[in-house]
């Protein structure tokens, strides 16, 4: 009798063992659409990439569907260039390289706090913060998917803009407060110019006349509980910067809309339009259910603006689209804390 009880108990233990099902192979080409980098639940959640195509969310977590794996903690951004997708995973200090079917090709590890990408021909430049007050880095990844060059920068590099063989790098707030834009010559990895702007430069845009604009987000002074506004600058070819207008603190994701000849960016609660030379910002009307704005990108050929709403950062977020011509809006379910948006047409 005594043995039967133990036998039953041990049987229960072993009956609980289970095996994971093998994934079904999927060979769909991920050719175009809207890609959203979902940061995941901080600090313990895995991030995801949401794929929106043909006015519908095709996958809320495309990577895990195609790889039976998680991307890791805090997905910062996604990018595509020369046949590969690149995903920066901030807390995991890594970059995932994926093929056209979104299958993993290569992982770069130990790269610091990876942030954003820019294309330099068929090469890709990735920005990365250093730890604490440590220096940030730019990694140049070549077509063979090797890091062929590492450039140390004196700050926390955010978004970048490649112009010919030069790259403009916004040295943003990172773990401190910065106010510099750096211009590097890429082939020689040399610093050409450092330009001081408002606090927190974070994104660039080029208008139809080739003028390079940089957006600064300002910063929040915790000690005095004061919000310090940022500014929108135009960068002259010699590297000097001219402030065009003050912008609300927290502004980011600058882009240019050729259809309306305006620059578009967002703060935490609003989306703004700015026309070069004017002295006021225009606030766009948002769908009523918007709670906040985290990422923003423009599908210029179709004149559709996309922005992400992370809600409480702990539930399923939403991506909204607004057709800037018809003002028609749509919404698409994303994953947790949707942020940066990348559009591939």
């Amino acid at each position, binding site marked *: 009798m*005594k043995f039967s009880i133990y036998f039953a*108990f041990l049987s229960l233990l072993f009956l609980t063992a289970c095996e*994971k099902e093998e994934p079904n192979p999927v060979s769909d080409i991920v050719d175009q659409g809207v890609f959203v980098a979902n940061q995941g639940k901080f600090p313990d959640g895995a991030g995801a990439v949401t794929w929106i195509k043909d006015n519908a969310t095709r996958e809320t977590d495309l990577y895990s569907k195609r790889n039976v*794996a998680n991307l890791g*903690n805090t997905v910062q951004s996604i990018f595509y260039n020369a046949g590969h997708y690149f995903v920066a995973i901030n807390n995991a200090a890594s970059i995932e390289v994926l093929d056209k079917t979104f299958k993993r090709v290569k992982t770069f590890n130990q790269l610091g706090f990876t942030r954003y990408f820019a294309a330099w021909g068929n090469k890709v430049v990735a920005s990365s913060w250093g730890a604490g007050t440590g220096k940030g880095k730019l990694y140049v990844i070549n077509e063979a998917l090797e890091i062929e060059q590492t450039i140390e920068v004196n700050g926390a590099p955010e978004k970048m803009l490649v112009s010919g063989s030069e790259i403009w790098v916004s040295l943003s707030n990172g773990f401190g407060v910065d106010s510099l834009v750096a211009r590097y010559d890429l082939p020689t990895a040399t610093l050409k110019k450092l330009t001081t702007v408002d606090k927190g430069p974070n994104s660039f845009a080029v208008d139809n006349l080739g003028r390079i604009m940089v957006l600064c987000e300002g910063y929040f002074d915790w000690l005095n509980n004061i919000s310090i506004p940022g500014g929108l600058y135009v960068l002259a070819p010699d590297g000097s910067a001219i402030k065009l207008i003050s912008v609300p603190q927290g502004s980011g994701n600058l882009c240019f809309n050729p259809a309306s000849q305006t620059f578009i960016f967002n703060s935490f609660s609003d989306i703004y339009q700015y026309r070069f030379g004017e002295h006021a910002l225009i606030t766009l009307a948002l769908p009523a259910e918007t709670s906040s704005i985290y990422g923003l990108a423009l599908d210029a050929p179709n004149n559709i603006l996309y922005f992400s709403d992370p809600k409480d950062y702990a*539930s399923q977020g939403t991506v909204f689209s607004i057709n800037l011509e018809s003002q028609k809006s749509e919404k698409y379910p994303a994953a947790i804390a949707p942020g940066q948006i990348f559009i591939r047409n």
Partner: protein
Amino acid sequence: MTSLRCFILYVFLLPLVPTKAQELSANLDSIEIIAPKYLPSSRFATPADSSGLHLFTLLQLPGLSINSIGSSGLSTLSNRGMASRHTAILYEGVPINGLTTGVFDVSLLPTHYFNRSLLYKEGLSSFTGNQAMGGALSLNHQPSGRNGLVSSAQYTSTQNLTLHQLWNGAFNKVRWTLGWERTHHLNQQQFYKDLTIMTSPSFLRRGHNINGEVDMELGKNHKISAKVWWQNFDREIPGPFYLRVDQFQQDKNLRSAFTHSWHKASWQLNSRFVYFNETLNYQSPGVDSRAKTSLLNIKTTAIFKKIWQLAIALQSENVTANFYTQSRNRSSMLLSMTRNWKLQHGWIHLSVSPHLVNNKWMPLHADLRVDYRSFQFIAIRNYNLPGFNDLYWPSGGNPKLKTEKSFQLSAHQLWHASAALQLKTTLYSYHINDFIQWVPTGNNTWTPLNRKKIWSRGAEINLGYRPDWLPFLSTFNAHYSFTKATNLDEASGTSRGKQLIYVPLHKAGLNIKSNFSFLHLDADLIYLGKRFDTTDNFLSLPPAWITGATLGVNVNIKQVHMTLDYRIENPIRAQYELVRSFPMPLRYHTIFLQFKYHPK
């Protein structure tokens, strides 16, 4: 509404069940000075014998959850769907939850020393003050009562070494205990990531716990005791999936208590002086936080004929942290009055506790406990203060936060079908208003707001069976708990009506202990149901089966008692996470060797 009707029906029907009155538990002497020794809830306190080889013993308790950042990070307890900051960890009746965060890391507990801890499932704020709204784990050491020396060593295949020494002594009317526990844990473990078995790098956690206590009887009426607990730990905290992310934490905590009790005729007077001094430093890329906290608690309790009890406590808390703009203080005066009425088959207890915090009266604590035969009904009104970080965090701290308030109802029934079979059942319903939640606001900041209304209700069943027909001593314990904890807040959008994160709807466990002559066996099986980890229940962690078994031998050679145990954890190599992205270890093994020496 149907649930509420069922609950009311249950409450009124339970007293009709014929049951046998039980004696109160006798091992509660050091639980809480303000409460009478016959504190009614003590009968339903669950002994949480943490002297075993593993902390997961606590998971065998119904309704209790552990949220662990892997096997080597922060581990906190939560009870019946309440938050970790609502579950007090008590040392000498005073919560040792961190003043800044409100939570306590149970992974640093000297589990060998606290060999007789008790878990109070009901809110205890009326007796202990802040942070016990969701119950309390009272840490206790039960001395052997005679001279003796205990030495033990424990080594796991994850390369964790723990050494432990315990010295019990007695001379005339003086009794002392000295405990020392040294840990050197590398936490190198196997885990699943993306269907692949990986081995984590080492994450060193090293440090020691030193505990000491002295009791002395002075004449016939006086008794004094002094206790001290020193903790000093350094550790590296892993990132998700055991990535090295350069997170380090140092904990240095000094906790001390001095108590005096006097009794004569119908009077009893207890006094207590408690002082904590704690340091918590945390470094990670971009963060270098350093906090020093201190707590001073002086309390006197007068008891008359076990009928009346009056207590007054003065408490001062201070936090000096490099992330606050200035040093922060909180002063409290905690008053409590308890009246007990003796019934023919039970007691009625009523406590009222006005608390004055920073010169402001808090919502009145009220605690009604009806103890009739083996049935108990409890109605409690509790509150919980915001933590210092909630109030003073530089980027978003909200000094205008109100206290969280709760109204808690529970009904308990003990059934003794026979001397061998015991069944405990509980139904409960907790309402919390002004639940503090950090929410994103403008300027990319987060701020805590009194936003949510929470309703946690559920049932717990605990079955104990000690068969007398077996030729050897065996006990079987099984439990099941159903916890429905939802957010009732109108403004929460898609989160409204959804289960709170990391609260399993279903949890069950089975434990078997047996002794055959010099052999002993202990086997655990725990089922942890699906747990949501997003507020709208969009994502969830799958159910987990947690298993383990111990086989040991006891050998007595004259005055030396030796124990050699082998334990296997997770023998079925189950893949599970208590917190997302922090997988728990696959199968690992532990060897435990202990010598006890008791001279005649």
